[in-house]
Structures are given as C-alpha cells and as structure tokens.
C-alpha cells in the first residue's frame, strides 16, 4: 500500500510550513528557474526539468560570512555565524540530494564544518522524483536514480493529480502530519531511464591517463570560466577573505573554481598548476580519482548541468567514455 497526498493538500501543507519556516522552492525569476525563498505558494514551480543552480547554494552558499570580529578598546571578540531559521527545501531532485550527500562526505568529515552542518541539520529535504530525463542527465550511472529516495527526508512522486509520498527519515515524518495522507493502491509510474555512461573502473583508468595528451587537447577549447563548478551540486571549492568597515571585520567565504587562473597561484607568484590543460585535468581528476580515493564515491551526481551550460561543450560523459577508451576498457 502506498501513501499519497493530493495536490491541494500538498499546497496547503506547504502554505502552513511557509508561516513557521523558510520555504525554499523552485521559482521563476527574470532569468532561469532557481531555488528561491518563497513568499506566496503560487510562486512554487512544480513542472520543471531542473533548476539552473543546484540546491547546494542553500547549504554551501555562493557567499557566506563565517564570523564577525570586533575590536572594542583593545579587546577583540569573535562572533561565529550561526543558522537561525529552520528551512524546508522543496522540489529538490534526487541528483541534487545525492550531490549534497557527496559534499557531506568532505564537509562533515572530522573536523566538521559546523556552519554547513547547521544548514544541513536545520533543513528538511522534500524531494520530487523526475518525470522525464533531460538529454544531459545520466544519474543512473552515478549511483542514484530519478526516483531515488536515499538522500531526502520525504520523496514525492507525481502520479496524475496526486503525489505518492515516501517518508524516508524521522525529520520527514515529523514534518508531514499523517492526516494529510491517504492509503492508495496507485502504482508509481516507471521512472525515466537516462542513457548509461559506463564508469566502472574509471579510477584505475584515470591513474594511467594522467600524462595523456588528451587533457591538453580537451583544454584547447576550454575557456576556463567557473561555470561548470558553480552549477555542479558536488563542487565545493571556496575562497576566504575579510571585509572591514569601520573597525568591524567580516570573514567571508565564497565559491571559487579550480579553473580560475589564480587558484593555485601563491602570493609570490609561483603557480604549480598554471597551464590550462593542467587546470582542466584537475577538475576531472578530483571528481573521478582523488575524491573516490578519499571518500569512496565518484564526485558526480549525473545531473548534467555542466554539460548543459558549458560554452564549448566539455561533456563529462564524453570525457569518461574517451578515458575508458584510452585506458583500453573500450566499453560498447
């Protein structure tokens, strides 16, 4: 027996949540669809492929203050930033949730990034299964699926006018009152099946291919912007600098990407990884070799955003297939 919730009950439940919590959901902007705080339930978009930026931006924001420091008559006091409001992230796709789980492996490993931890603890993830796969999706090849409930607190799967509800965690259970749920025998629709990218044994092949000229040829066309890293649900590189105004100091952390020119340039100017080829290679080595070695999983959720936004079509699926070929594992 599956539990379902009607569209009307779903929206009224979200309306109630709106009063007490920060409700973040996909909404239209004058640009692309983005996860934004919702002020009116009507703003929530339920029919969308995926947001331009992943939900990562609400846990590891593009810009965030780590702490404030104030010096009053010779005494300096540090005030760490904290996350106050409880939040609900509604409409997160399974691939973004998997992305968060991958970032958790790095940020929550000892010593845990407590600010990120607060963002995660104080938010409930209400996932929305995908009804159709975009041409760039390949989540099933990266250990998740269009209806994978593993990394969300509640998973909704649209079926005609209602939604099948899968309560996954205690957090989800506590948030969704039972009286809104109906028992039903409706069968979930078959999930879309994006094309398969065979990434088995990619680590071994990557280890062989480090000095291959493939990387510098791939980098020929790369323009080295930060786009692929900023839209990626699993990229977590950052820069830290201070802001000072009228004696009050603010330490700010912002996104940065391994493609930016100064990423490894030291203050004296020495830059061990200066060439374009080496920087682009670093992106794929971190995702397909270093991260798996450290944390046991490929640092990719298969959401396909980098493939979609890359100005010059650097396609990670093509890179994986090419590297398998170079490594002699020419998978049909």
């Amino acid at each position, binding site marked *: 027996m599956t539990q379902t919730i009607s569209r009307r009950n779903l929206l009224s439940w979200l309306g109630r949540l709106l009063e007490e919590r920060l409700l973040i959901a996909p909404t239209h902007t004058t640009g692309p669809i983005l996860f934004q705080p919702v002020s009116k339930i009507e703003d929530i978009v339920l029919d969308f492929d995926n947001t331009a930026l992943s939900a990562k931006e609400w846990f590891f924001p593009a810009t965030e203050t*780590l*702490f404030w*420091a104030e*010096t009053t008559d*010779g005494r*300096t006091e*540090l005030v*760490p930033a904290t996350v106050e409001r409880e939040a609900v992230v509604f409409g997160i796709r399974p691939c973004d949730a998997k992305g968060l789980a991958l970032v958790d492996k*790095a*940020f929550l*490993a000892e*010593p*845990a*990034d*407590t*600010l990120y931890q607060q963002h995660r603890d104080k938010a409930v993830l209400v996932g929305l299964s995908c009804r159709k796969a975009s041409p760039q999706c390949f989540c099933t090849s990266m250990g998740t699926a269009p209806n994978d409930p593993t990394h969300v607190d509640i998973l909704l799967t649209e079926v005609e006018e209602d939604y099948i509800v899968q309560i996954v965690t205690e957090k989800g259970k506590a948030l969704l009152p039972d009286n809104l749920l109906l028992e039903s025998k409706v069968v979930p629709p078959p999930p879309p099946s994006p094309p398969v990218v065979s990434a088995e044994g990619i680590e071994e092949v990557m*280890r062989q291919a*480090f000095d291959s000229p493939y990387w510098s040829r791939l980098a020929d066309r790369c323009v080295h912007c930060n786009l692929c890293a900023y839209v990626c649900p699993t990229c*977590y*590189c*950052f*820069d*830290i*600098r*201070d802001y*000072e105004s009228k004696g009050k*100091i603010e*330490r700010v*952390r912002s996104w940065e990407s391994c493609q930016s020119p100064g*990423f*490894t*340039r*030291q*203050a*004296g100017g*020495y830059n*061990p*990884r200066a060439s374009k080829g*080496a920087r682009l290679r*670093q992106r794929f*080595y*971190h995702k397909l*070799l*270093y*991260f798996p*070695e*450290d944390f046991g999983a490929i640092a990719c959720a298969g959401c396909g955003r980098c493939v979609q936004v890359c100005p010059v079509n650097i396609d990670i699926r093509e890179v994986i297939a090419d590297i398998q070929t170079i490594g002699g594992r020419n998978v049909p």
Partner: protein
Amino acid sequence: MSPENPFVPYLATVKNVVTLTPDIKLLGLELDDPTVRDNFSYKAGQFAVLSAFGVGEAPFCLASVSHPKGELEFAVRRIGTVTSSLQELEPEAAVGVRGPFGNCFPLDDNKGQNIFIIGGGIGMAPLRPVINTILRNRDDYGHLLIINGARTPQDLVFQAEFDIWASSPRTQLELTVDRGHDGWKGRVALVPAVIAELNPSPENTVAITCGPPIMIRFTLQELRKLGFQDNQIITTLEMKMKCGLGKCARCNVGDMYVCKDGPVFTCEQISKFIEQF
C-alpha cells in the same frame, strides 16, 4: 582548533616583532586562552593558519619549538596582502591562529643519524625548529651539517642564532649567498654548489631541505649525485591553502593534500605523486 567551528581561529596577541631581514619579520604570538595555550603542542614541520584580521588568512610554518609557556613564532616574509598586514602589527595587536596542522619531520625516526640541513632564504623557517630540537637532544643525533643560503648577506635568516648553532657540539654551519658585497667575507656560491663542495657522505645521513622551488630542484640533483637515496631526502612543500584541514581540496598535488598528508614529504613520496609539483 576551536572545537565548534574549525574556521574560527583562536585569538592570540602579538608579544614581540623581530626584524630578521629587510623583508622578513619574526612574530612572537601568545594564545589568549590559557587552556588553549597549554594543550597547543606541535612538532617541527607543522604549520598554523594565521589571520590578519581585515585582510584574510594564510598558512605559516611554526618556527619555534613547542613549549606550553613558550610563544608561537612565525617568520613572515612580506610578499602579499596578508603578509604585509601581519608585518605591520605592533605588539599587543590581535591575530587569529588556527592549527596546528599537517604532519611533521620524522625526527624520532632519524635518531642516531647524521642530519644534513639545507635551507634557502625563508626556507630556513621550518628548518629552525628541526635544528633547535636536535640541539636540545644533541646526543640522540650524529653530526649536524647546516647550509643556509640566501640572495644577499642581509637576507640570511636567523642570523642571531648562527653563533649558537656554529658553536654547538658536532655541528657545522656553512653560510652562502648568491651575491655578496664588499663587507661580506663568507662564501659566495649557490647552495647546490656548496653541497658539491662539502661533499657529505650519505652514509647513515638524512637530508632535510626547504627553499624556493628552483633551489630544491638543483639541490635534489646534487644530493642524488652524492648517492643520497630518495627516502633519505625530506622536504616540506608550500601550496596555496584555504582551510588547512584537508577539507577544501585546494592544496592537492595529485591525490595528496599538502595540508593533511604533508607538508613534509620524502622525495620518494614526491616522486610517486601522479602530478608534478
């Protein structure tokens, strides 16, 4: 490291600022919180991330030998925004300290061996605690040969301690500069040339070196010519860092993080790195 948020530094106060060379100053810091001070123990080779409030953070090796009552000493060379700001600090100013981070020189394993130290310019900073640790346990180690090179005589680092080092038992201090001037009576030669000239035997010896990348490259060549095996040569790498905690994957050389797996590596380890440093 503050138990709550690893990105929030311990507060410390500048106790004294000593000018070592025209562009290098030695900062002596004291951690404000006594409990933190007592168990902030570290080994030669480890580093800490200093906060120049209002500008940012940067990693610096701990140039002092760990002592609960002792100050934390950092040699800071004026090279960028954070170092310039740190150099302008007066005593009693507030700074932030995160750490201690990274691994350390394997001095315990090197007991009984001869130690051959080769430092270039600010590269002497991580080697200073190695020397002072050896001198404090002098009998545990064999002969200590130190080459300290710099661009010009005034750029030689830790000049105030040269006499102590040179006069210590079974210790030999060789100074060299790239360009001398009329007042300079010492050696004028590049560090690798001095290695060839002194021609130390690799027998039961470990070489510990740190300096600008160009010096390291030619120093390794000379050491290998003298018969030093890669596992007998130890160095400490310097990479741009943002967390120092093995979290942000910024300081990687291949699959190694300089902040977590290093900064101290043997040349044998470095030769196995998938990515050239």
